[in-house]
């Protein structure tokens, strides 16, 4: 495959994974946890690098999961000590992120890992780092990692579909039925973490938030069915990613920035034109009264 094709495929995989997992971030009202986790996985990645001394996919994934779940745990713990939830989040993720930044600057700074790269990602470098897999053949490592992560999150979402639905909609009922709500919460935070780690190389810590939240928020405006919302959000993610690439190629700018910008455009279009909750339909057809 050409460089361009690899880049577009990688971007599309980022859009798809983030779009799907983002639906539950929106529905569980934990959208800002994505922001927190996207920053703290940096610490996990750095620590994984310090221990293994290589930029390897699996070590990074494990480091990222641990950092993400640790973040969720710390936020919950501070909150239980009467720190406001949003404040707890702000404190935890900035602190952990800062430790990551300091570690990069002092002990691991090199060509593979730097702050600029961590924040913005660099999708154009992805095809330079090929690995060879059985059956599939030569594939960029980041792309392979994304494929693996996509398979993992699709598996968990499909296998526990009804549990995600009930713990998102009515955690009190779920708990009274004996569904382990807290375990599901941490499992979900783990899934957000692996998605973030896998997307890190491509779009970086800041833009991944756009990919996680905006397609899902747009899909929310179009449908009243959870399964369709998942499909739609994943599609919006892919469309934004591909459109972002071409916007970047056209005006010669950052690919990850353009991808995030494209998600914003999709949201604007949804917000104005959505037949159910859009601005225009609300004007034309005032809310039906029961």
């Amino acid at each position, binding site marked *: 495959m050409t460089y361009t094709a690899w880049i577009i495929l990688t971007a599309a995989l980022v859009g798809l994974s983030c779009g799907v997992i983002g639906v539950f971030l929106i529905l569980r009202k934990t959208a800002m946890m994505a922001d927190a986790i996207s920053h703290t996985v940096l610490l996990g990645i750095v620590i994984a690098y310090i221990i293994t001394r290589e930029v390897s996919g699996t070590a990074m994934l494990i480091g990222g999961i641990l950092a993400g779940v640790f973040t969720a745990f710390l936020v919950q713990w501070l909150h239980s000590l009467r720190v406001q939830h949003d404040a707890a989040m702000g404190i935890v993720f900035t602190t952990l992120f800062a430790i990551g930044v300091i570690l990069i600057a002092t002990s691991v700074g090199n060509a593979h890992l730097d702050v600029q790269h961590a924040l913005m990602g660099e999708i154009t470098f992805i095809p330079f780092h090929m690995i060879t897999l059985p059956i599939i053949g030569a594939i960029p490592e980041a792309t392979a990692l994304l494929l693996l992560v996509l398979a993992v999150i699709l598996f968990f979402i499909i296998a526990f579909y009804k549990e995600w639905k009930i713990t998102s909609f009515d955690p009190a009922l*779920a708990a009274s039925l004996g569904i382990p709500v807290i375990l599901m919460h941490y499992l979900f935070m783990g899934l957000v973490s692996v998605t973030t780690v896998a997307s890190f190389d491509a779009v970086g810590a800041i833009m991944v938030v756009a990919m996680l939240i905006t397609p899902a928020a747009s899909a929310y405006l179009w449908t009243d*069915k959870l399964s369709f919302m998942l499909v739609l959000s994943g599609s919006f993610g892919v469309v934004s990613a591909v459109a972002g690439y071409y916007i970047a190629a056209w005006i010669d700018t950052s690919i990850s920035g353009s991808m995030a910008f494209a998600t914003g455009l999709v949201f604007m279009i949804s917000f104005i034109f959505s037949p159910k909750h859009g601005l225009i339909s609300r004007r034309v057809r005032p809310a039906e009264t029961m």
Partner: protein
Amino acid sequence: MATPILQVENLSASYRKNTVLHDINFEVNAGSLTGIVGPNGAGKSTLLKTILNLHPSLTGSVKFFGLPFIKAKKRIGYVPQRGSVDWDFPTDALDVVTMGLYGQIGWLRRPSRLHKERAYEALDKMGMADYANRQISQLSGGQQQRVFLARALVQDADFYFMDEPLAGVDAATERAIMTILKELKAIGKTVMVVHHDLQTVEDYFDHVLLLNRTVIKHGRTEQIFTRENIANTYGGNMRWMGEEKRHAVHSIE
């Protein structure tokens, strides 16, 4: 009838470091319909949640059918406050009712046609069959409450806990819910309801639990629901309520 199916001993709970419930002791017999009544902030919802392990208790023990909650939870149904969930969630009424069966369906399985049929029957029972495929945000408050009741019915529990099911609902829904509650009682189920309207307590419930951070009085409505006990529960703010009650005309059943 006489064996208590709920035993609460020395229960206490706090909310953000303030103790809201202390020294709670009571027993509930099978087949009773109990109204939990008390002023705002008395800890009515917290009491339900603490009994059901949804809120941590500081001290005390709770036994259902002589067992701890974990072993009895399949026989217990809970109806949270309507305001506790997001009604903009992308799902329909039938789907919400089906959620009541998720515990029985078990892991890694999808609701079958049979489950859907049972959910539909429960909706029908609440007079909501026509709204089965309606997005839940398009239902009125009363209809949403009926969906919640249908979800509890489908659980087919022996012991129901309901948090303010009659708050902010229309008269038709209130009648529909009370009919169902009396039906549940008639077939031997036990129900505890957090209730806010003192006017209707005598008509609706055979037992009353007067609560203000601890149990003020608990027992049969006709013995417990007296002006004096109500005044004790509500403190000094009871004057106008008491006067209104004197003029109220109660239907004889």
